[in-house]
């Protein structure tokens, strides 16, 4: 019986949260809580089993939905990359769910939070597994609508406008992506990624399709200059939502870009695209960090930090273009950075949420003496700051290490300088929060508010455990690094 269950594991990863979502919708707020907790808890073992399957199999596993073989039917593909992203989604998803249990009071407007939340996690799982270009479109749309609905949930003026801006950007991105899919189907008559890789030829329509898809996904990943919608959306959303947006949702569209440019084709398919993405990434790092240094609100600072950290992911493309896909350093650097950033950034947003709930505001200059009033939250913020800065022993450091090695080996040393400068800039904006944290509690902050509404333990621990996970990743990250490169994406063999 067990190996029958194993075969269906990829489907389970999507089905578990997908089944839980309508149940939570029908169950309403009070019963939605246990349903969500159970579903997210269950998806962790599922993700671990999938990771185990991928690493033991050593190559791509295909799961043809509906029993129809590849070109006709839709396939779910499990390889190192998808297993890693599933694992991160499961772990971060569960931790944020635990945090959200205490975050939302019984309120009319939050009654559908759990349904939207489970739909979001289900769509992320579907996105990371799908091997069909059009299916990825539907998955992207599912992610976007769920994310926008969650952003607009608090009903406040800024949140609504931020949600609207995010919605328009998301729909525009999807339409660009769809136009690309149309041209791909027109040029190659195939929708499955592996088949596409096999028949991909130098063809104007194909190149235009890749360009359109990239523009669409850049819009959804909020790479500079298409980042305008991210800071208001990520900072005005409720904190658990901001955490999942910065940690996972932006990574979903980046994942598809990664598949497209390193699995199906390669960055030189459209001449100059790799370098363009790299330059935009570098500008994003600098621009995001500078903006983060200028923000007054903590959540805006963390949101602009996301804009900067997304820039790091895109440094991968020029390096892979020069060094070729088989020099795994740059590719592993990008993916590993995505993983460690997911852990650390979600911890940072959860900590920011804890600060907001403790002080009632998140203006940075009003956060004096944070380490005395909310020690665990301060620790969580500090530890995740270490990953942002890319200092050892964090996962961010390993990613930075791989980036520098790749750029020196491939001769494009300037990317290494960008990475190092980004680390220092990150130190700048992290210090803006940590430094006043150590200051003696300012006179006006009377001790009365110190223990006003002391945060429930599980919320602070959820943030701290995510931050610690990012650090552990820096030391014991080898299994993750081995898992990532399973099923060498460049092979594109037709199973």
């Amino acid at each position, binding site marked *: 019986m067990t190996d029958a269950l194993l075969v269906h594991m990829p489907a389970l990863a999507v089905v578990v949260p997908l089944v839980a979502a309508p149940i939570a919708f029908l169950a309403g707020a009070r019963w939605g809580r246990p349903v969500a907790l159970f579903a997210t808890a269950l998806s962790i073992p599922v993700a671990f089993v999938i990771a185990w399957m991928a690493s033991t199999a050593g190559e791509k596993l295909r799961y043809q939905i509906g029993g129809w073989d590849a070109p006709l039917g839709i396939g779910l593909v499990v390889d190192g990359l998808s297993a890693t992203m599933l694992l991160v989604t499961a772990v971060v998803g569960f931790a944020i769910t635990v945090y959200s249990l205490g*975050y*939302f*009071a*019984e*309120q009319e*407007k*939050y009654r559908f939070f759990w349904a939207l939340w489970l739909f979001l996690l289900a769509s992320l799982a579907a996105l990371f597994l799908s091997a069909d270009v059009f299916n990825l479109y539907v998955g992207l749309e599912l992610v976007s609508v769920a994310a926008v609905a969650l952003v607009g949930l*608090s009903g*406040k*003026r*800024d*949140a609504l406008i931020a949600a609207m801006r995010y919605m328009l950007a998301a729909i525009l991105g999807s339409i660009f992506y769809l136009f690309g899919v149309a041209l791909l189907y027109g040029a190659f008559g195939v929708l499955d990624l592996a088949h596409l890789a096999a028949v991909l030829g130098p063809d104007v329509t194909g190149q235009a399709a890749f360009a359109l898809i990239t523009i669409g996904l850049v819009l959804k990943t909020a790479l500079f200059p298409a980042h305008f919608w991210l800071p208001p959306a990520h900072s*005005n959303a*409720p*904190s658990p939502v901001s955490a999942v947006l910065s940690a996972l949702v932006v990574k979903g569209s980046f994942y598809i870009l990664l598949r497209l440019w390193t699995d199906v084709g390669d960055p030189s398919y459209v001449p100059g695209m790799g370098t363009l993405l790299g330059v935009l990434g570098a500008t994003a790092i600098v621009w995001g960090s500078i903006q983060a240094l200028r923000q007054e*609100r903590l959540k805006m600072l963390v949101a602009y930090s996301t804009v900067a950290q997304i820039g790091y992911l895109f440094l991968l493309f020029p390096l892979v273009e020069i060094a070729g896909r088989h020099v795994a350093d740059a590719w592993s650097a990008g993916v590993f950075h995505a993983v460690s950033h997911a852990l650390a950034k979600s911890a940072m947003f959860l900590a920011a*949420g804890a600060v*907001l*709930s403790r002080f*009632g*505001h*998140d203006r940075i200059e009003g956060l004096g003496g944070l380490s005395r009033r909310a020690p665990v939250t301060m620790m969580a913020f500090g530890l995740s700051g270490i990953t942002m800065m890319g200092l050892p022993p964090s996962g961010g450091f390993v990613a930075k290490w791989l980036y520098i090695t790749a750029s020196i080996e491939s001769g494009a040393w300037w990317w290494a300088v960008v990475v190092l400068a980004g680390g220092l800039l990150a130190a700048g904006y992290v210090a803006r929060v940590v430094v006043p944290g150590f200051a003696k509690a300012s006179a006006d902050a009377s001790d009365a508010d110190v223990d006003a*509404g002391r945060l429930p333990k599980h919320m602070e621990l959820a943030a701290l455990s995510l931050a610690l996970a990012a650090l552990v990743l820096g030391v014991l990250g080898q299994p993750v690094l081995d898992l990532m490169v399973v099923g060498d994406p460049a092979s594109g063999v037709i199973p």
Partner: protein
Amino acid sequence: MTYSGYLYDLLLIGTLLWLAVRILAEVKLFKAVVLFIAFGLLMALAWVRLAAPDIALAEAAIGAGITGALLLDAVGHMRGRAAPYPTDEPAGDASAVTEMGDGRG
């Protein structure tokens, strides 16, 4: 320009493009939405020309019908209220950024 009926297609596409420009340039929202519904019906016609009856049906029913109804309702909702420019004091509760206030009840 070889296949039969291309003149008909050109006319149809010309109208579609002209309608699209008119919709986006139209200042009065109600008129723009009505034009959009016409655009939807013409699109249904285009699907028939392209031998896609399923899509023609769906476009007519959903594209022109439901979307049109939702748009009309939205415009009605907006026109019935205040001027099109944001007033100084928003109608809603201009609560400070105490998102947590409502979050934690």
